[in-house]
């Protein structure tokens, strides 16, 4: 019989599991604190924080509010975010009911197309809208030549809000879809049995069940509206409409002559507090949503509503909507990349060119930005998945004393807007001696991206983890395995599908990211997103669309492979 040595707690036994607990916790804390600390410090300093004679002051906040138009900027941000949220929630929820519960023809593929915008950045979407619906956009010109007036103005706060809302609708859609399709069919049957018609049953039983999903995604979309850079930058720039993010971006990037570090820090803090409050509010609103829990162990399939003779009419409506707001946007980008200029007045096949792509592939900078993007997404995705998995395992499946605090810490980046994370890491590398080493490399980008998307990865792994009964770990422990062996031999192999999904999600997010990188990249570490930002600023629409096309194609190939080969679940 194997004799086993007895360990006593009194003696300092360094076991490897404990090392990992502390290692993961400390690393997470360092990651979360490194962008936050410098921003907070900077906001209260009268000079850039790397200067040794900087003194404490509150003047930054005072100057921020004295700044001309500051109030307007905050109001713009609020209006834009509210509109983004409202549009996203309405379209998302309606589409969820239509796709999830009716017999609309082709609802399978319409649903798939509807989530496309989630795979690409807002920058690409914004550029697509600009190409089709901008003041000299393809569809705008076509409509003007037909009816004589321009029926819309994209370069307005409302225009921006609608575009942002439509690009965020898939998020609301996915969450509501989960709620309506998983709703226990028996609940609706019960309503039917007491005399409600099918639509009445849907409206009074199932639609209220979407409430938690609606609330949750509403706050999420509001936060995304507040921290969104691309759409306000592209559409607000020409007409001089500023939001907090474009203000931060302009002050931090473009004001090279007069870098207003103090004001930027102060504005960043206000933004941070606002977002943190919203994330807290989200948690608060979601409390007690247990009574809306609709998922039961043996839920039968919800019944499908027969639209009857409205089937094809509704199909026409939904298809037109999806065509005009999604297909046309992507088509516009592809088309624009293949022509010298895009106009409804000349048939596009007379303007075909490969010049845009040639320009991308002949420039070392542009090629490097593509390579960097792929490397960051792949390597960062792998490292991120490993790190997030460890966090989830320590937080949920270990005897670590600070397991709960670790989870809160790891989920904090939800409240950290990308632009602030970027700015914070930018300050950190300037400020902290030694970090100079990774300044301007793709490693700092990877670090910032990983931090920012820990919650996304966690969201992919945690639910799967709670499906794995904890007696499986206990069985391994009692059979003689320590914590590390247990998780690596028992829990992780069972979690494999969730790990693949986590990796795929992180890959997509890293690959499309641009905001967080805006302050962090330098020549040599540019990524597709930052290069596109620069090209957009210069008005080089041909290369922008070529780059966007390349990004979309790589993403599509990746999603296809990830679903096929890894069986990853990415947005349904």
């Amino acid at each position, binding site marked *: 019989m194997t004799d086993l040595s007895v360990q006593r707690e*009194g003696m300092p036994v360094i076991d490897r599991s404990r090392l990992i607990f502390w290692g993961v916790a400390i690393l997470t804390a360092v990651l979360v604190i490194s962008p936050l600390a410098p921003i907070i410090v900077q906001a209260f300093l009268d000079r850039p924080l790397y200067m040794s004679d900087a003194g404490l002051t509150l003047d930054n906040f005072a100057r921020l509010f004295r700044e001309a138009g500051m109030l307007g900027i905050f109001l713009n941000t609020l209006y834009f975010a509210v509109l983004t949220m409202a549009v996203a929630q309405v379209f998302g929820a309606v589409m969820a009911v239509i796709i999830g519960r009716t017999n609309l023809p082709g609802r399978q593929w319409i649903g798939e197309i509807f989530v496309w915008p989630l795979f690409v950045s807002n920058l690409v979407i914004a550029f697509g809208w600009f190409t089709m619906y901008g003041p000299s956009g393809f569809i705008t010109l076509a409509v003007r030549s037909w009816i004589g007036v321009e029926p819309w103005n994209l370069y307005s706060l409302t225009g921006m809000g609608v575009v942002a809302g439509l690009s965020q609708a898939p998020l609301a859609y996915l969450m509501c879809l989960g709620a309506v399709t998983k709703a226990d069919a028996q609940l609706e049957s019960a309503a039917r049995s007491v005399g409600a018609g099918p639509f009445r049953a849907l409206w009074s039983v199932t639609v209220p069940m979407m409430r938690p999903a609606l609330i949750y995604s509403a706050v999420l979309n509001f936060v995304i509206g507040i921290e969104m850079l691309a759409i306000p930058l592209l559409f607000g720039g020409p007409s001089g409409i500023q939001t907090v993010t474009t203000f931060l971006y302009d002050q931090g990037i473009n004001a090279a002559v007069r870098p207003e570090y103090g004001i930027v820090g102060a504005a960043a803090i206000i933004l941070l507090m606002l977002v943190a409050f919203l994330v807290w509010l989200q948690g608060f609103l979601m409390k007690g949503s247990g009574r809306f829990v609709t998922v039961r162990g043996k839920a039968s399939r919800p019944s499908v509503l027969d639209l009857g003779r409205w089937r094809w009419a509704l199909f026409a409506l939904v298809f037109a909507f999806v065509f005009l707001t999604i297909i046309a946007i992507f088509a516009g980008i592809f088309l624009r990349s293949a022509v010298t200029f895009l106009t409804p007045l000349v048939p596009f096949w007379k303007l075909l060119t490969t010049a845009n792509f040639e320009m991308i592939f002949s420039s070392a900078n542009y090629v490097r930005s593509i390579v960097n993007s792929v490397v960051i997404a792949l390597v960062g995705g792998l490292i991120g998945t490993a790190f997030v998995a460890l966090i989830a395992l320590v937080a949920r499946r270990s005897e670590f004393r600070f397991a709960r605090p670790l989870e809160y810490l790891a989920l904090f980046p939800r409240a950290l807007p990308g632009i602030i994370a970027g700015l914070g890491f930018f300050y950190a590398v300037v400020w902290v001696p030694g970090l100079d080493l990774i300044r301007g490399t793709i490693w700092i980008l990877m670090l910032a991206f990983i931090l920012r998307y820990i919650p996304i990865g966690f969201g992919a792994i945690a639910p799967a983890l709670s499906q794995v009964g904890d007696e499986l770990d*206990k*069985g*391994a*422990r*009692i*059979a003689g*395995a320590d914590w590390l062996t247990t998780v690596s031999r*028992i829990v992780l192999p069972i979690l494999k599908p969730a790990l693949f999904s986590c990796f795929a999600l992180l890959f997509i997010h890293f690959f499309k990211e641009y905001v967080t990188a805006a302050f962090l990249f330098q020549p040599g570490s540019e990524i597709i997103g930052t290069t596109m930002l620069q090209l957009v600023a210069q008005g080089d629409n041909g290369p922008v669309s070529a780059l966007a096309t390349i990004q979309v194609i790589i993403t599509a190939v990746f999603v296809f492979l990830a679903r096929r080969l890894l069986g990853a679940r990415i947005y349904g």
Partner: protein
Amino acid sequence: MADLVLDHLTIQYGDVKAVDDVSISVASGEFLTLLGPSGCGKSTTLFSIAGLNKATSGSIRMGDKVLFDGATNTFVPPEHRNIGLVFQSYALWPHMTVAENLAFPLKLRRLGKTERDERIAEALKLVEMTRYADRYPYELSGGQQQRVALARALVYRPSLLLLDEPLSNLDAKLRERARVWLRELQERLNVTTIYVTHDQAEALAVSDRIAVMSMGHLRQLGTPKEIYERPADSFVADFIGSSNFLAGRMVQQEASHAVVELKNGTRLRTAPGQARSDGSLVVAIRPERIEIVPELCENSFLAEIGTGTYLGSIYQYHVTIADTELRIQTARELPPGPVHLRIPPEATAVYAEAPGEY
């Protein structure tokens, strides 16, 4: 193999004491059952022996090895205890075949491949599952999974085997066969075993001794016969088998017997026992011990046969004696109507507290 000793073990969650000052010692090779209603702290006790939860105070020792001691803050992690544990849900690792499930603990103990294979074959043979070595857990029936779980817990020859309601997922027939088989296996291997169940028939059938628990307390520790025939208190009397309870007060207390006055004034001769300070008590009598007599005599009552239930091998009837409804069990069917019932004094037990009063 060594004795296992739980000494004043207390396990607290918040302000709930899931296990409250429990002391048990289990002899080497013994089959001890923890029995009690749901939520009484059986699993909590078992898991603290395994090291899967940490007790609040007291100690757990196996031979001269201290597994847990609240006073010195000693805690041996589960993987260093060399204990076998079978979970109610079996907890077979779904991504490993039966053989791989058994191999895992052996690999952790760094056994060579040949010895490993030998031991796996031996363990599978023991549970009659040799044919299924290459199956995955989901390809097995519940009963087969339960055997594999047992084989996995035995394959590394643990010094102690813990079983948490291992048979509760099986159907009644299979459960009865499995418990006989389990007991035979345990005797053959002579492995010290602690078995958790809330099924009293199972406990009575397989155990050397039974520890009856309720709300974290150890109520009685004894052989099945002791527990059944001499319940230490009315909770045990009620939980094991079943008992009728007649409330009354003490009239006369002797060394050999007692006389109790029931609520309606009738007097009853009973076994000796203790009453509360105000004289109130309950008399417990098992339904099958109530006799039907041809005419009134001492300790007998005239009663009316009420509704009956056919329980398969016996009949159970509700009758009313001294304003209290009782159950009686008989081997043959009784015609409705009046009957004389006798409560034999030697079949009674007297307790100060009624079963619900703890």
